[in-house]
């Protein structure tokens, strides 16, 4: 049994990881997946303060599968409102189909 879902993707600075996952939990999403990422954006509101000479990425990419678009937008809105004035970040959504009746 597959299930239509909405996939929200947030790319932002690593320092925000805990705060954003709290927002995701609080909003009622059933989970999230985080990946280390690097990148360059158009706004570059703030540079990350990460060392340049090392081999690590200073961004994270968070993916949240939500049961409907509304929840995804709610999370994205909250995140943008709290952080995107002062931190680099972008968020976008796309469609997905969750397999195997995963309780998500």
């Amino acid at each position, binding site marked *: 049994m597959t299930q239509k879902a909405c996939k929200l993707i947030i790319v932002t600075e690593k320092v925000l990881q805990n705060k954003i996952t709290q927002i995701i939990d609080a909003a009622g999403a059933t989970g999230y997946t985080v990946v280390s990422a690097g990148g360059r954006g158009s706004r570059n509101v*703030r540079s990350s303060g990460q060392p340049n000479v090392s081999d*690590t990425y200073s961004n994270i990419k968070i993916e949240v599968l939500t049961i409907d678009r*509304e929840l995804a937008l709610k999370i994205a809105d909250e995140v943008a409102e*709290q952080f995107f004035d*002062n*931190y680099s970040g972008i968020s976008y959504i796309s469609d997905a189909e969750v397999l195997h009746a995963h309780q998500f």
Partner: protein
Amino acid sequence: MDFLSNFLMDFVKQLQSPTLSFLIGGMVIAACGSQLQIPESICKIIVFMLLTKIGLTGGMAIRNSNLTEMVLPALFSVAIGILIVFIARYTLARMPKVKTVDAIATGGLFGAVSGSTMAAALTLLEEQKIPYEAWAGALYPFMDIPALVTAIVVANIYLNKKKRKEAAFASAQGAYSKQPVAAGDYSSSSDYPSSRREYAQQESGDHRVKIWPIVEESLQGPALSAMLLGVALGLFARPESVYEGFYDPLFRGLLSILMLVMGMEAWSRISELRKVAQWYVVYSIVAPLAHGFIAFGLGMIAHYATGFSMGGVVVLAVIAASSSDISGPPTLRAGIPSANPSAYIGASTAIGTPVAIGIAIPLFLGLAQTIGG
């Protein structure tokens, strides 16, 4: 004349020390475009080992020390940490094109302490055989935390004042943005509120910044908690065998690698400074030396009043001259989110730290030798 030429020769000799020469080497190879990378995990463990070692030294020393000797230097450290922020508030922040919050954050970072700069100073003191109190490293938190706390409090008071009106407006909007968004129609473009609230505005309700969470966050940072762990183990356990067989002998070598990284980092950050006002360059050259001289002066008072050693005076001057590189930036980023990290991290990493290590350390060392010898 003779004094000056002696001083200069000493200065060059100190630049040849492993610590400073690796710093310069790092800048040079970064300038030459070297692809050399020191992995981040290595930097982390080096910082851990250096600060644990400094902590252990301090902790074992405190066991046999008269701690009342530490009171005056510790008080001076607190005073210097706070003072540095206000200096930035009333100098750098007044400069054209410099945003006030950015200046306050920069002051906080320059007031806070760099563990690696302190490690470099301790190593050079040992090489020059200048004695210092073994607990001198433990002055670190007494300057670091007050500086960060002051910067965050001052910045938020400033922002609260400035934004009281805007905040009221934004919070109305914020409440509006929480009303459920009409969903269901996937392709329709819903209308999002584009205004956002200042993060600090959450505090604006009670017009007060809470201090304890900032202190706690500082103490929990990787640098300070490694050092405090070392102090505690030095005090309560018997770490002598690992201290003598591991932490102490590896200290200088690990420091040389860290200095290399800091040199490379400094060079690669310089370009970032171009994006911010040029007064940051002036500030980050002058401030470390100015802060160092203030601390040196206060240290001399303690020297005459309570017998604080000349080596200790140098340590006090150097931690004042240093600017935080590990725990300071994230603390400030969270506490003053609207300040631009390119400004304060760039100023500190690209110029402040090389000046503190490459100029302030040999300068205050030479001064102490001249006065003390």
